[in-house]
């Protein structure tokens, strides 16, 4: 099997852009026939459809306050427009009029206020987003005023459908949020009605005839099937039983074969809000890894281009820094990977006082990898090979997910942890948890498990979170990236590309918004 190099990847990107090229001619797109059933595949079942606790959203049913475009800018949806005061602490949202919940009740500012206040208590990420929210006012049914005690520059990015669920207050008020039946059979204001859920098999969405944008949605029905096995997903796509799958539904190694048949396309956009980052973390309490020169040596021993080929089949771009290229407002593109140079790595290790022993080894390290993503295992094997070349023996510890969490975050059995701790839509979302010294917390998943502690970084991250001026905010995050690039508590490897595989009869499935693959489906249409 030949890997796809980065140039081919570029072509694929261009090709996938071409597929949705009729975006540029919306008038033409509007005339496309309505109807048909779109069949979607997902890899795992979500335990809930209302994102109260960070355990599963369904924007296509829920609706969203704002949409985020490919440039990461908020666009109107349920909120038609918004004003932000000069000091960045008061947000006034002007909501769309005449919008109805799927049960016919009117959607009002009360619902939005209730959502903000509820998610502040229940949602693991929105707890941070709304931490400084001091008051929510509803001067009238279509105006919402949110007052913060400090500027909240990250707010709008969090208000898309995958970030903030807009809850029907009349359904949730005064009930037990965890067991409310609406979590399993939701109503929303979105383009699709939730019809049925047969657990372990599928759920069905149907076109909302009263959707506020009368030109949408364009398909009549969506069937979402759960197929846990990747080979079975590939077969279902191939037989035409499935039209589209998000989040890399088939193994990366199969993509080329699918594209060769001309019946399928691949789309790499739509995952920008994830800030997908593949990195390896060091356990800084390890006496060997404590030495900066050792960590530099390890960085020099890794060939990123090779990693992109063997692990990601070309579907990744280098991300030498902790903030990925997709987060373009913050990513520092001047930083480069430590050059692949085994000789230099060897020299650094010698200098650090770890010469090869008689058996050719300098040290033995335990490597853990996150089993949540299949590629991590291949990455672990590549790293074992690459470090072996410079005399570091790597023992790979294989754990299933729950055991992995326990072993890595409670028992800390790792020396090197191969990970995909993603950035999220904003550095506050994914970076703080891994680098703030205040987040060194035993037993807490995705916390600062390297035990990296740098007061300068703490100060930068804390002040950047509340920085009102975009340029100044960027400056602070760039500064942060440079410091961790120097200190190397982690080697950042690549921004990997999640893939959407689709049958060519499906059009406009990734129109503009970045929704982590759980698409809104309002524009998608089928061609036979």
């Amino acid at each position, binding site marked *: 099997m030949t890997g796809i190099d980065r140039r081919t990847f570029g072509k694929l990107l261009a090709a996938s852009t071409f597929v949705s090229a009729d975006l540029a001619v919306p008038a033409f797109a509007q005339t496309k026939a309505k109807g048909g*059933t779109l069949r979607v595949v997902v890899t795992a*079942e979500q*335990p*809930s459809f209302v994102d109260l*606790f*960070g*355990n599963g959203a369904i924007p296509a049913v829920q609706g969203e306050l704002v949409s985020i475009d490919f440039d990461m800018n908020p666009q109107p949806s349920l909120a038609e427009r918004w004003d932000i005061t000069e000091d960045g602490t008061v947000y006034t949202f002007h909501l769309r009029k005449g919008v109805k919940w799927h049960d016919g009740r009117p959607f009002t500012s009360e619902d939005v206020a209730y959502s903000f206040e509820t998610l502040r208590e229940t949602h*693991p*990420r929105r*707890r*941070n987003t709304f931490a400084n929210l001091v008051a929510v006012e509803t001067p009238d049914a279509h105006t919402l005023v949110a007052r913060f005690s400090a500027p909240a520059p990250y707010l709008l990015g969090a208000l898309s459908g995958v970030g903030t669920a807009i809850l029907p207050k009349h359904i949730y008020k005064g009930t037990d949020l*965890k*067991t409310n039946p609406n*979590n*399993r059979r939701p109503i929303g204001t979105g383009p699709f009605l939730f019809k049925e859920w*047969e*657990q*372990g*098999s*599928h759920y*069905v969405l149907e076109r909302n005839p009263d959707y506020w944008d009368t030109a949408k949605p364009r398909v009549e*029905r969506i*069937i979402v*099937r*759960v*197929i*846990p*096995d990747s*080979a*079975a997903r590939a*077969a*279902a796509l*191939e*037989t035409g*039983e499935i039209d589209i799958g998000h989040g890399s539904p088939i193994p990366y190694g199969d993509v080329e074969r699918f594209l060769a048949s001309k019946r399928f396309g691949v789309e790499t956009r739509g995952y920008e809000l994830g800030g997908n980052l593949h990195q390896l973390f060091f356990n800084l309490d390890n006496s060997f890894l404590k030495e900066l020169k050792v960590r530099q040596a390890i960085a020099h021993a890794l060939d990123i281009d090779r990693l992109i080929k063997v692990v990601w089949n070309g579907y990744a771009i280098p991300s030498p820094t902790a903030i990925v290229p997709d987060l373009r407002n913050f990513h520092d593109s001047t930083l480069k990977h430590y050059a692949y140079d085994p000789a230099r790595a060897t020299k650094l290790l010698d200098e650090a006082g770890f010469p090869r022993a008689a058996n050719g080894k300098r040290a033995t390290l335990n490597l853990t990898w996150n089993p949540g993503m299949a590629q991590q295992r291949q990455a672990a094997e590549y790293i074992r090979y690459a470090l072996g070349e410079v005399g570091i023996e790597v023992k790979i510890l294989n754990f*299933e*997910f*729950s*055991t992995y*969490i*326990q*072993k890595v975050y409670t028992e800390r059995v790792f020396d090197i942890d191969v990970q995909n701790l*993603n950035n*999220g839509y904003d550095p506050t*979302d994914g970076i703080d*948890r891994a680098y703030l010294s205040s987040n060194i*917390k035993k*037993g*807490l*998943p*995705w916390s600062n498990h390297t035990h990296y502690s740098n007061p300068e970084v703490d100060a930068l991250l804390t002040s950047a979170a509340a920085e009102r001026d975009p340029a100044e905010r960027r400056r602070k995050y760039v500064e942060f990236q440079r410091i961790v690039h120097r200190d190397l508590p982690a080697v950042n490897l690549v921004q990997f590309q999640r893939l959407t595989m689709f049958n060519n009869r499906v059009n406009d499935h990734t129109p503009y918004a970045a929704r982590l693959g759980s698409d809104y489906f309002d524009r998608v249409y089928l061609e036979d």
Partner: protein
Amino acid sequence: MSRNRRILLSLRRNLLQAIPTMFVIVTLGFFLMQLAPGDVADYIAAETGAASEEGIHALRVQFGLNLPVLEQLFAYYDNLAHFSLGISPRYGAPVSDMIMARVPGTLLLMGVAIAVALLLGFAMGTTMALLSRRLPDRLLSLLSLVFYSVPTFWIGLMLIVLFSVHLGLFPSGGARTIGGPSEGWDWFVDRLRYITLPALTLGLNYVAIYARLTRAAVIEAQRHDYVRTAIAKGLTPARVIRRHVLRNALTPIAALTGAKVAGMLGGAIVVETVFSWPGMGRLAYEAILAREYPVLLGILLVSSALVIVANALFDILQSLLDPRVEVS
């Protein structure tokens, strides 16, 4: 002893054994889950991608995971005594609802798979016995051995590649056409198309066992006097085989089928995953991964009940087939 009395005795014995068996299974299952690293609070916290210490603690308190282990176990027994299987921590739904939605799927899959295995096994075994030590015997023997030794998931995938991807005869997964026919002949055909490959995959593994057993039983039965008498009476060979040979060969097969039900339930997990068949096996697998012990224990309870019922049925069947089988 009358036939009915024998059946009643058999039922009573099975019932008396059922309760302690299920108690032991649930208790063992509970402790096994305790041995596995991590708990459902860890899993939920990791699944959400961000969590706080307070959040995890709150989850533990909510699910009673902060209590001493024995107290948790007694709380579970207490629930059971009130005929409740508890609430799934991840799904926030009653465990009994979640399991009951999956039981029919698994039962159907197993039932059809057993039928497939028995039919194929009989046919192959009889052919092998009648042509014993000749080429067809050797070939069929080899074939059944292949089915027996090749991993189930591989057979499943190969059947998908051949019958779904290349020939387009059967769907590659699922249990029915979603939004398809809901009654009548069309419904039946639709369900049949979906169950063929999974049931064949699950059944093929057992074909070898039944084929070997049938072959031995038929060869054995052929030596008996009553078979010689039947032939001497001038009965056609087909009738001799059907009435006199196979019928006597059925007894050991019925006994074995009963014993294999539990193993089949295990094999169903793999088949359900490969064919995205909504059954209990996958639910159990996911419950183990997420450390959801109320769900897993519920499944253990229901599946042990199923196995016990199946065994009782096969006991009865056996005593009907062969009046000499005594119920102790």
